[in-house]
């Protein structure tokens, strides 16, 4: 097939024109990606909070993404799940929103919390009778406090305003809140978000902790895949907190106190640790003035202490099995560097070459030719800030075993490491990156996520787009090198889901 590499230049150019941007040439001929040229208006407040505002043509809607640079990685065993529980608690309102009588509510909080302290002591003693009675007491107190609660008022205000997708997500690296609003209600977001940043109230705390326990039951304890992934991470990481589940261990969730959660919030969820990206039908100057008006006065807060834990080099292959009442499944993970490391782009290309489409090496061999799997996919996780894992997941096709999947995966990786990808394969991936550079900026909410993530992670919203430019430069030799260097036997952890024997 002879198709020139015409895509990159013309595409970048077309986007520049379409967005109506000045066609500024960057120095030394370095070509900018479409994303880097977006006219993002940056606002930095004196408390360290950063806003990124981007006006886009189209429907009169606005996407808001608020990212705090604190997540599962900042937790310790004993209080795991705290960032995720906080994610839930920030929807509970403030000292005015969500309440009919804040003083009456707070008076009950202290009694509930003292009872909870006693409950933890009883639990530690193994006194289940007392513990059960104290749980009932806490529930009764929370029900009493509920008489003063205006339930889900924050959600209702957003809903009535026509909001879409009000939600949040907690990862190892960050906690991110998002919502979309009709653009005439942009100021409403500022009023509500500033209010809850300044003045959140963790009402209905013990009930919400139960909700989180149910979330864990749903995602992990009743899900064969959820369980396999959790066990795999736990085996792959012996030191670094990436091995600890973001949702938290059940016994930790059940022991987290309102005090733990509050003090964690006061320290790490201030404006100094927050980045907001606002994309859509907005006037960036208005955004700046609202940002200053609503957020400038909120104290900066602290930054989480640096995560100094380092995962030691893995001495030999690790293997675990998870027994479940389900068909088999395989997850392999190799330790790889963090997303900003110089080798990360080559690893990204390696993933695309292995499973990024029906013509790729593992898909072709395992799914289409040998037909030993129904699905195989490569990905990286469980975070970006610290050294992560290069995953390969495979779903065997009966009667083929996970052993066969493993052998096929290792054989293809060895072949790629020995021969390197062909120029045609690399060109295909480059074309996909180029098209992806356009597709990824088509949704306002998606774009807001990328800007906030990149700014929060690297201090520069452009880095995410620069990374994709770097992907295009990856050579065949680099792919061979990273495959040979990282995807080795000693460096991998293999988790296999096996069907439970017997009844």
């Amino acid at each position, binding site marked *: *097939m002879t198709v020139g590499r015409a895509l990159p230049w013309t*595409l970048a150019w*077309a986007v520049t024109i*379409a967005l109506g941007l000045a066609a500024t040439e960057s120095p030394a001929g370095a070509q900018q990606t479409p994303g880097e040229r977006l006219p993002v208006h940056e606002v930095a407040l*004196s*408390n360290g909070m950063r806003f990124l505002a981007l006006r*886009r043509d*189209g*429907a*009169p*809607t606005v996407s808001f993404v608020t990212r705090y640079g604190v997540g599962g990685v900042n937790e310790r065993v004993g209080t795991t799940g705290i960032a995720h529980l906080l994610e839930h608690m920030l929807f509970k309102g403030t000292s005015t*929103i969500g309440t009919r009588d804040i003083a009456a509510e*707070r008076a009950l*909080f*202290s009694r509930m919390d003292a009872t909870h302290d006693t409950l933890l002591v009883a639990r530690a003693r193994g006194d289940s009778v007392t513990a059960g009675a104290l749980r009932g007491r806490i529930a009764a107190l929370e029900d009493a406090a*509920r008489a003063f609660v205006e339930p889900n008022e924050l959600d209702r205000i957003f809903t*009535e*305003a026509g*909001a879409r997708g009000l939600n949040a997500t907690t990862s190892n690296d960050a906690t991110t809140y998002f919502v979309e609003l009709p*653009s005439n*209600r942009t100021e409403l977001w500022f*009023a*509500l978000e*500033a*209010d809850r940043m300044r*003045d959140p*109230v963790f009402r209905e705390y*013990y009930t919400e*902790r*139960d*909700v989180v326990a*149910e979330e864990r*039951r749903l995602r992990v304890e*009743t*899900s*064969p895949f959820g369980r396999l992934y959790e066990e795999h991470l736990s085996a792959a990481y012996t030191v670094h907190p990436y091995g600890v589940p973001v949702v938290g261990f059940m016994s930790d969730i059940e022991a987290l106190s309102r*005090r733990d959660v509050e003090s964690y919030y006061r320290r790490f969820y*201030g404006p100094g640790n927050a980045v907001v990206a606002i994309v859509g039908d907005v006037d960036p100057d208005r955004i700046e003035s609202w940002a200053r008006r609503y957020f400038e*006065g*909120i*104290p*900066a*807060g602290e930054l989480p202490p640096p995560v100094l834990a380092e995962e030691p080099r893995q001495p030999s292959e690790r293997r675990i099995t998870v027994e479940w*009442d*389900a*068909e088999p499944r395989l997850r392999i993970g190799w330790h790889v560097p963090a997303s900003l490391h110089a080798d990360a782009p080559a690893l990204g290309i390696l993933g695309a070459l292995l499973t990024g*489409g029906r*013509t790729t090496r593992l898909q072709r061999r395992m799914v*289409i030719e040998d*037909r030993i799997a*129904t699905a195989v996919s490569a990905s990286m996780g469980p975070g970006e800030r610290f050294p992560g894992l290069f995953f390969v997941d495979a779903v065997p*096709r*009966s009667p083929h075993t996970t052993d066969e999947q493993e052998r096929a995966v290792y054989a293809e990786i060895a072949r790629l490491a020995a021969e390197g990808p062909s120029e045609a394969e690399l*060109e*295909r991936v480059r*074309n996909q990156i*180029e098209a992806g550079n*356009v597709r990824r900026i*088509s949704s*306002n909410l998606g774009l807001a996520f990328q800007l906030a993530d990149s700014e929060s992670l690297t201090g520069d919203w452009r880095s995410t787009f620069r990374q994709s430019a770097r992907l295009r430069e990856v050579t065949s030799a680099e792919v061979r090198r990273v495959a040979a260097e990282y995807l080795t036997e000693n460096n991998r952890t293999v988790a296999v889901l096996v069907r439970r024997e017997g009844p």
Partner: protein
Amino acid sequence: MTSARGLRSAVAALALVVGNVATAAAQVPTGREAVRALRFPPLDFSPPTPERHEVEGVPVLLLENHDLPLVNVFARFLGGYGLFAREWYAPAMGLPALMRTGGTDELSPDSVDNLFEYYSIEASFGTGGGSVSIALNTVTQHLDVALDLWSDLIARPGFDADAIDLWRGRELESARRLQDDPGSLAYSQFNRLLYGDHPVGWQTSPDDLAPERVAQERFREMHRRIVCRENLILGVSGDVSWETVRPRLQRLVAALAPCPESLPRAPAPAIRRGGGVFLIERPLEQAFIVMAHPASVRLADEPTYFAATIGNSILGGGGFSSRLVARLRTQSGFTYTASSIWTMPRRYDGVVGATTSTRPDAAVPAIRLMLEAMEEMRSTPPTQAEVRTAVDGVVNGFAFNFETPSQIVSRMMFYVAEEWPEDWLERYASGIQRVTPAQVREVFAEQVHPDQMTILIVGDPERVGREQLAPLGPLTVLQIN
């Protein structure tokens, strides 16, 4: 430590760090009163309307948008597995997948894959049972090659025998894995329980996938019946003009045969009535619960439809603002997720009910809360404030119906295909604004009967408690192979 003290001490400590900001903090009013005092300008917005064209009698809706060098093309064919007898289920269900993966009359499946991936063309081929929807997304630069390839897959699919074999093997594996996830198991078994031998209740079985049922000629037959000219509506959005795209669409339409005969009508479902409790025994950490019974409200520009829609939002369709989430999650801590279900098809009866998942010992209390919430909707009108929340969400969020050109075009294609009023969104917004609390109560009193719910539980019988289940209705243990 109380919250109040925690707040003050933290603020004081931090103010020392950042200097003068504490004084500024007092200046900006936030909180409920400040929010209530905000006034919002009206939205000045006229939604773009797709242009209407025609190619050889086939309607084409086009909405140009040149913000990004991307083009979307959509083809929607009436017809799908829901219209044919069970023996045609697998080839009709698999038709879109095999159109994508079975090559063309000229190109092998591999060659097609290579072209798609080399040019980074994204395509989706799917079916909802009553129609087949095929979409294309490409950078403008490769529109010609993408559209020609896409058209060939639609009009001249190869249905390569080896590709059929590959698809069949994957379907068999999916059938084997149906029970891996308890939530999926609950929903599929519930459909089967309620709809029986009706397309909604069907699950792909090894019998459906017997080689003679998925032979090449059977895909060709389904293609002949569905993928023909009179069944087609086309849509285009993005960085393209009518002059550019017209010859390509003409080429597609010219390659399609006229429909040989009209499509069969979808069979009317006979939805299970009479209630009862059904248990699929699994030693799980949560019980998965689904309940419903038939309901006769249909999609129509009528007060009953709008009242049922708003009522469903208040009961459990409206997320955190709804009663089921408030009671099962916010107040009881029983669950991460709870919602009501009210399907309102246009031509047939639907179902009304609810679903959740919870720890086993809370399963029966959760079921009771759900039934009580339904009973209250029958006996007492919702508050005016609840109705307002549901209505305002739709009315104030109206602009979200017009976020992307492709969304606007796809919706309009649906209206044209279904001969549905093209101003439906306006009618809908106006219809729900007329709903009164009394109408909501009336439609619930007439349509919703908590004592007639068919209730399915996937969970641990001992920890859920057989005795607790007994008062909910006659118990049947379902054996799933």
